[in-house]
């Protein structure tokens, strides 16, 4: 009888202890479930944010490439304009030099014609030498003009 009473008491206390443990674990599992749910929601939110950031990164990269291209095109235009301006300056300078040489040629020819009109006023040797100088001057001017025309024709 004593043993039966002891057994009953032991089993009762054991049952009580397990019941308390089960209640504790159930509370823990509910808390863990709540944490898991919150974490899943956070994960979903993070994934959505990550996807948005990826799209933003992709857009930013496309924009960077486009801006780099725009800068490159502006640079190409700038260099082309600089080259054209340099070209025009060089042509203008060359044309000026050719014009000056041709003008000198014309003036020298005028002087020569005037001298040939009154040859008795000049030494014949000096006159011939001057005529040669005028011819050389005009040949050089003509060659410079031809070279300019050839360059412009290229």
């Amino acid at each position, binding site marked *: 009888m004593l*043993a*039966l009473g*002891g*057994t009953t*008491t*032991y*089993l009762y*206390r*054991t*049952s009580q*202890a*397990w019941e308390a*443990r089960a209640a*504790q*674990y159930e509370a*823990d599992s509910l808390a*863990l479930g709540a944490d898991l749910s919150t974490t899943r929601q956070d994960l979903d939110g993070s994934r959505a944010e990550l996807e948005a950031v990826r799209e933003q*990164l992709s857009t*930013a*990269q496309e924009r*960077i*490439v*486009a*801006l*780099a*291209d725009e*800068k*490159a*095109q502006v*640079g*190409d235009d700038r*260099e*082309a304009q600089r*080259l*054209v301006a*340099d*070209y025009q300056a*060089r*042509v203008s300078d*060359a044309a000026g030099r050719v014009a000056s040489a041709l003008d000198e040629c014309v003036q020298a020819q005028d002087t020569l014609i005037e001298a040939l009109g009154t040859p008795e006023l000049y030494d014949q040797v000096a006159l011939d030498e001057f005529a040669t100088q005028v011819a050389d001057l005009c040949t050089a001017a003509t060659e410079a003009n031809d*070279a*300019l025309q050839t*360059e*412009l024709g*290229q």
Partner: protein
Amino acid sequence: MLRAVAAASVLALAGCASVDIPRMPGPAVTDFVPTAVPVAAPTSVGNLSPDGFQEAQRMAVRIRNVGCISSTGITGYTLSTGSGFAIGPTTLITNRHVVADSAELQVSTYDGRDVSATATSTAAIADLAVVRTTQPLPTYASLAADDPALGDEVTVVGYPDGGPLTLTRGRVIGSTTDPLNENLGQVLVTDAAVEPGSSGSAVLDSAGQVVGVVYAKNASDQSFIVPVTTLRTLLEDDGSFVDAPACSSLP
């Protein structure tokens, strides 16, 4: 004591048979979250560069060639563009014809930064050139050990028509003798579409390694590339690249 009494009584009731005695619960588990869990392997490495751009883009450069003027100092001005790619911190590879007759080379990176070019040397037997820069380039490529095989997928990274940086895919469709320079020997043919301005573009394999350099195309829109083994051979030979001639007259 109580448990011993209970066990003895139960044994007595059961006639010495083996019986499982309910035990009192042990210490309660309070931490259900493991400190170490298996980490899932990433399915993709993504773009893990400092700014998210692919390495293939970061190594590419755009080259503007401001040409020499004629010896008479009047005409002959030219402006052209090409592509190139870095193989070292301040070293890049392009085509010889991209840097030919140059008064000035203007190099820019994938993100539009200007990089000053200091020296240029060109190869005699292949349409290749090496350009040195003063500022460091964003990144540089590694050269593959072998040429790509027939059918291999390749990616061309460059600036077709001098426009935006572009990645174009294609496959190696064969090899042929160099149509422009018979001394070069065999070159590779791909179906990757290239345009003027693509010259000097890196040709990459699936691992992102350089397997060739674009230098020409034909009427069938096939592109010709200098194989990486040729590039390697020339780079390893000190005498294969010589200083590019300077303009006789600068603009």
